[in-house]
């Protein structure tokens, strides 16, 4: 699969130009990553939350200094960024109300993908980077998300929780 560095569209492997925005796909091939929770060593399961994302679960994003959490059911792809009315590409989740501009969030910052039972996060070449649990993501390389992970968009810090419908 080739993920467009410009618009995060997922193109089939073998494409050279993004079928969504028409730009050259220069990124390296990124394989779809699937991690089963049962494959993880036991001692780690206490430190990290589960990577298992239930079918009808929702994501709760607690952004630091915000009064209300952001809650949403992820589609195949959710793009985070800062809405710029003059730009053609618009994020799915606009972080402007949470101080995106002051905290250096890019217009198209990062995206969360959903693959069956896992979520992955990909930095889309943002100016100030995306950090997962304090570690800076390499642009366009997906990482699996777990319940309770800390995500930092530029300087904007948030915590991510999985909420299953039963709880």
């Amino acid at each position, binding site marked *: *699969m080739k993920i467009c560095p410009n*618009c995060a569209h997922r193109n*089939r*492997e*073998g*494409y*050279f*130009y*993004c*079928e*969504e*925005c*028409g*730009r*050259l796909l220069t990124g*390296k*091939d990124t*394989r*779809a990553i699937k991690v089963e929770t049962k494959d993880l060593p036991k001692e780690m399961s206490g430190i990290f939350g589960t990577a298992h994302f239930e079918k009808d679960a929702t994501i709760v994003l607690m952004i630091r200094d915000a009064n209300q959490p952001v809650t949403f059911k992820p589609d195949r792809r959710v793009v985070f960024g800062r809405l710029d009315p003059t730009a*053609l590409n618009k994020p799915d989740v606009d972080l402007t109300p949470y101080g995106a501009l002051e905290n250096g969030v890019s217009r198209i910052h990062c995206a969360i993908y959903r693959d069956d039972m896992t979520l992955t996060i990909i930095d889309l070449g943002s100016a100030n980077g995306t950090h997962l649990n304090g570690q800076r993501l390499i642009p366009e390389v997906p990482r699996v998300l777990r319940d309770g992970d800390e995500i930092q968009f530029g300087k904007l810090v948030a915590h991510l929780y999985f909420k299953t419908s039963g709880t």
Partner: protein
Amino acid sequence: MPIDFDPYGELGVASNASVEDIKTAYRRAARRLHPDVNRNSAGAAAQFQDITAAHELLTDDARRREYDAQAKREADQPRLGFTFRVTTSKRTVVLLGETQVVYMLAEIFPDARANEHKSQNEARLNLTLVLDRSNSMQGIRLEKVKVAAHQIIDQMREDDVLSIVSFNDRAEVVIEATTVRERSTLKARVSMMSAFGGTEIGQGLKLGLEQNRKFLAPRLVNHIIMLTDGHTYGDQDFTLGLAREAADAGISISAMGLGQEWNDKFMDSIASATGGSTSYINSAGGVVRFLNDRVRGLANTFAERVTLSVAPDPDIKLESAFRLLPDPQPLDAESHIIPLGGLQYNRSIVTLLQFELPVDLKLGFRTIARLSVTGDIFPNDFQRFKSINDMSLEVTDTQVEDDPPQVILDALGKLTLYRMQEQAQAALERGDVGEATRRLENLATRLFELGHGELGQQAQAEAQQVAFTGDFTDKGRKRLVHQTRYLLSDSGPEENE
């Protein structure tokens, strides 16, 4: 009778191959092409027949000796042909557990020696013009068509054959198929055409086909040019059936649409079915040039009835085919036997094919598709020439840095723009105004970035139009379709206002 079938080439064996080698080569090819394993490919079916014929000939001792003797005699007088070169976007693919796409650029060009033979071997034409004279053609449009027809009559040679049919609700013969001798009489008949009534393309094409068949011969470039400015209603299937009939008979059709009201998708399907092309003539002023250019191109034919036959391996799918040169035209990938029209001197025919590889690949070298091109070569007394390319690639489990060939990148960069507007149209047909708008906005951005400002503005205007009204403007849509298509040809965007 010169031989036009190369059994060794069909099986890919040397001319001194043993019977054992020949049988092995046949079995290997049959495993990919046999109708029992490759059910849905007409290309595979046709190629299976050819390898079977080759196998039968070469395993029959007497026939093989006879063939070898004749081939040896003819080897003294080498004949002209064309080169068929295929470039793949990748030589290796990685095992990924997901579907992948591979492109092939298929180029066909005349032998370098072809030009020496050009002057004494100019192609003779059997040309039929099918001209719309419905009410909407009244005035400047019909006048320009007449001027163009007059120029064509002047331009044709004495032993070319011309017929002209005009149509509104009914069709009638303006010039009965004839050699172009009494030019002034022919011109006078053209001048008497007048415009009234509706548009029924089917009737016009039916009569045009009848006229063209009168002189139909493999020694000629048999071609119909159809010019209309309106929509035809209710006879699309009938007309498309006629186009297929024409293709089977070796007649190609150019479709020319004048103004904004004609049905371009329908005309595309007619042209593509026969190896012809569709032209969008913005205003009456362009008629003369478009018609003249087309006729000049026909007279410059080196090989006629050039046909690409694609036999993908049973687990591979041919997803799309597009002719980039000489006249950019989407092709019908469903059929696998794809007419490409004529090959001109000093020009090439370039086609881009897109294949999808399955999820479950196995490591190692494997075949993808067998491509073959046939064409009747004019300077060779119209002898059929065939060239075969067996395409394969390697499946590995480690990433190999494999830069795609520049020719494929260049072609795809432009074709992507055409595909973007195509997808916007597809979204709108599904009723998804949001997606159509988004795709048009993306196209506009991309066009601006590439320096096609005017076309970018057009895309942006259409994006707004779609967002507000839920539909394209007729003119804007046609311009996007055809101008993104023209970007693919050497000459760049074609303006004819």
